[in-house]
């Protein structure tokens, strides 16, 4: 039998059902991989016992004939999801040791579906970052290394992308077959692209935000990350659904995305946004994008040029709206009720706030709180926040108009392949630019996914992004599948850890 950890979610599910192996064998295999991959620092907390317990239940259920959709499948949980009885930190010192008494809606749905948890995955602190370097618990390292041939320093440790970098790294390194991610401005798609896996951010409101530690409420959206499109569909079906505890949750039935998968693009139109073809676009990125166009054409799609004229304002608008919301969302971490409390000798309430927040938050979190506080301040609100909201409306309108001419949009996921850790930490703007292609779909609340498209000349994965109209995850998944079938992306990181 091949290594169980090489199997996809669908293969594990089906093989387990067919009696090829037990759920316990699967859990043990992944637990072993997790335990042996400390060098990647992908997990903040490992929970082998949780995975084994779920596996034990799955084995019983199989015997009893009461299988659930994800019986036998262990997964990784981004440490932004509150998990009952298991430390939940958002990768921040602020919440070190915080153990929720409650389970997030999304994780609860996954456990109800029979999945087990291998551990809590590392991330950028409060999901703020594009490289995982802002985690209080140390950065995750990508399993990928540049090819040595070009002399660019192939052994430099690379960023796994962010903020869901623990998820991407763990999946690429076969520490888990799938994981949850959250995407506020690209935090599922960009790490998926950096590590050669797939990930989808569904329409805003598909997955409940209840129990997910908030970064920017109007943008945060949970989604799955996995090795292929089918696995994303399976996972998403078991994460999505209306939740009365989240006012912004979509009150819509969850489609059977896996059953609806079809790589046939005949009669479909794929829009290519001309504004994304920016000057100085990385040659590898452009090449993979062109390949993606060719593959979709090959699958029967018609290619049309579309215009998203306000794209260039997306990043500035995002970096006003997201920090504004974050500055308010993170006000609750004040040392009064839970989490870190710093109480210097003789301190009053204000001193306690200042000391606690100074010690508890990392530099990037502080930067965004300060930006957010500034843009909401009296006298600046209209110039920044109100203006950014207008831009957001215009961007959503751009997409709505584009989708009058096409079914999905194809674009690069990120402007480059993974960069080396430390490369961009000194320049926050350079770091923010990494999200330039991902942010517009976030602002518009649209479903968008990244699938592997090929390798850069350094031998690093590059992702292709598919953006769909609201509620049409199926169109996004299908276009992703059409690319996946033609890209033949089989490259994987060579094990060094």
């Amino acid at each position, binding site marked *: 039998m091949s290594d169980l950890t090489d199997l996809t979610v669908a293969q594990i599910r089906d093989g387990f059902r067919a009696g090829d192996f037990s759920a316990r064998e699967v859990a043990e295999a992944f637990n072993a991989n997790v335990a042996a991959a400390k060098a990647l620092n992908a997990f903040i907390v490992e929970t082998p016992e949780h995975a084994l317990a779920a596996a034990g239940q799955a084995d019983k259920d199989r015997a009893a004939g009461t299988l659930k959709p994800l019986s036998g499948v262990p997964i990784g949980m981004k440490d932004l*999801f*509150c998990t009952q009885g298991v430390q*939940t930190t*958002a990768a921040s010192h602020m*919440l070190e040791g*915080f153990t*929720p*008494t*409650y389970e*997030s809606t999304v994780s609860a749905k996954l456990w109800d579906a029979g999945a087990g948890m291998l551990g809590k995955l590392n991330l950028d602190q409060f999901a703020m970052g594009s490289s995982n370097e802002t985690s209080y618990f140390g950065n995750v390292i990508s399993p990928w290394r540049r090819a040595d041939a070009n002399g660019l320093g192939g052994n430099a440790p690379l960023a796994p992308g962010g903020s869901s970098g623990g998820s991407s790294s763990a999946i690429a390194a076969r520490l888990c077959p799938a994981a949850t991610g959250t995407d506020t401005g690209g935090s599922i798609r960009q790490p998926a692209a950096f590590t050669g896996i797939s990930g989808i951010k569904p329409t805003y409101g598909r997955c409940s*935000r*209840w*129990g*997910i*530690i*908030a970064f*920017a*409420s*109007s943008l945060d959206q949970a989604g799955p990350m996995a090795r292929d499109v089918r696995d994303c569909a399976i996972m998403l079906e078991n994460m999505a659904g209306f939740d*009365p*505890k*989240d*006012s*912004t949750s979509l009150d819509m039935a969850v489609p059977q995305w896996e059953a609806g998968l079809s790589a046939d693009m005949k009669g479909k139109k794929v829009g290519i946004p001309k504004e994304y073809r920016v000057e100085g676009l990385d040659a590898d990125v452009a090449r993979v994008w062109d390949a993606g166009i060719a593959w979709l054409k090959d699958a029967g799609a018609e290619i049309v040029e579309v215009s998203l004229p306000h794209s260039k304002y997306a990043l500035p608008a995002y970096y006003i709206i997201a920090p*504004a*919301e974050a*500055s*308010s969302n*993170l*006000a*609750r971490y*004040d040392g*009064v*009720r*839970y989490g870190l409390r710093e109480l210097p000798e003789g301190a009053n*309430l*204000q001193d306690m*706030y200042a000391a606690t927040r100074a010690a508890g938050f990392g530099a990037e979190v502080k930067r965004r709180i300060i930006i957010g*506080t500034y843009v*909401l*301040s*009296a006298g600046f*609100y209209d110039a920044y*926040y109100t203006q950014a909201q207008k831009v957001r409306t215009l961007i959503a309108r751009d997409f709505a108009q584009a989708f009058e001419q096409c079914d999905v949009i194809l674009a690069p996921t990120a402007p480059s392949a993974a960069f080396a850790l430390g490369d961009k930490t000194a320049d926050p703007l350079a770091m923010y630019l990494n999200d330039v292609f991902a942010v517009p779909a976030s602002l518009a609340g649209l479903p968008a996914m990244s699938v592997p498209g090929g390798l850069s000349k350094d031998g690093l994965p590059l992702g292709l992004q598919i953006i769909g109209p609201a509620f049409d995850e199926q169109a996004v998944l299908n276009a992703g599948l059409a690319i996946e079938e033609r890209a033949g992306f089989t490259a994987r990181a060579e094990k060094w850890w």
Partner: protein
Amino acid sequence: MTESTYRIAGATGDWEVVIGLEVHAQVVSQAKLFSGAATAFGAEPNSQVSLVDAAMPGMLPVPNKECIRQAVRTGLAINAQINKWSRFDRKNYFYADLPQGYQISQLYHPLVGEGALTIDADEKAGIPEDKVIGIERIHVEQDAGKLMHDQHPTRSYVDLNRSGVALMEIVSRPDMRSPAEAGAYVRKLRAILRYVGSCDGNMEEGSMRADVNVSVRKPGEEFGTRTETKNVNSVRFVMATIEYEARRQVDVLESGGRIVQETRLFNPDTGTTRSMRSKEDAHDYRYFPDPDLLPLELTDSFIEDCRHSLPELPDAKRRRYVEILGLTAYQAGELTAEVDWAIYFDRLVERTSLETGKEASEIAKRCANLLLNDIFGYLNKFGVSQGMDAVTGEPVGLISTAQGAQLIRLVEQGILSGPLYKQVFEAIAATPEMPADYVERHGLKQTSDTGAIDAAIAKILADNEDKVAQYKGGKEALFGFFVGQTMKAMQGKANPGVVNELLKKALG
């Protein structure tokens, strides 16, 4: 409209005071504005706190429809514009009683827009005629928790029971011109809230409190700079705040000073206000739309349901009492001031009408007298009301409408005279005994036995020959004296009609 003549006398002449009130009224509902936690007053600290109220990571607010409904009903009760599209905003500031680090409120798009209420004329208080006070808006927001500084020598404790409870902030126009008008406004608003049932109006429990905005000006001039005195929690204190603050401002201005826009605190012990913080160091609340919540969109049918659920409101009731029941404006005002007693009165009239077979308008005056003279008099004499029974709606430990209606019937039927009525009322007021039973038990029925009355009259006329002579000499006012003496001799049981008749005959 006659303007208030209330003035503050200063060295440079008379000053006029301009008052606006922001009243915070706690919404009556089982659960908090955005969480399922309970809202009962007086529970053990931190026993009514949900994960949302404590602002645990990842928790989200979900609007409680009942709170929205109560605010809409309140808006309708003041004839206000109901905004079918409104939105919640976050008001950001740090404090230990504010777990989220922001209060969810409504700055930009409140639920209720422009409305008004009428304060009633009160000659004695210097309100010569009814006056309309504009209400700018009502918005819905979360209350904060409570800090307790007296539990530990060096630490403060936080009770989050109140955290997240729904408040309505009812913002008036600066339309009031005297402490009396402000007092009348708060009382009227409280009455309306209680009629509607959207707030219990208990200021001493903190479920209603006012921020008092005061400025002064020379009559006819532009508005002056105002100060805002926060969290004043009784009608009396609202009036005291205005009196103190107006005087203070006049003194400052007349001594060449300037009023600074600031927030002040009222000290109930001294009746004075002191500065809390000035506008310069005021918080920047960084209001912005709450991204956890969708805009609140109301349907026409929801608003209509709210409208239909409203009871008859005090102004309408007052008009009906005067126009249909024939009561005086004074009586109507007194009867409608408190919703519980107004409901009692309506039921008393209805029952009495059934008992006596008479039209409501025929017995309304007796009913009004029973309530205003006898019951309120009894309460004044023997202590405060224990309130109404939640199930029956009847006053606890006090005469029920069934007892009252029967008492009035006994009078209407001539069975009880005035003095007997009083005696029976006082005897049964705090008991469940029916008046007829009591009358029966004590043999108190008034008598029309002409023999007995004639005998009594004969004795009285014989004992008072001088007065009989005066009466016959034209001093007819003495007739009342003979009636009184006869009634006394009959121990109040004589039928006054029969007494009159027989006396007239006897005096020839």
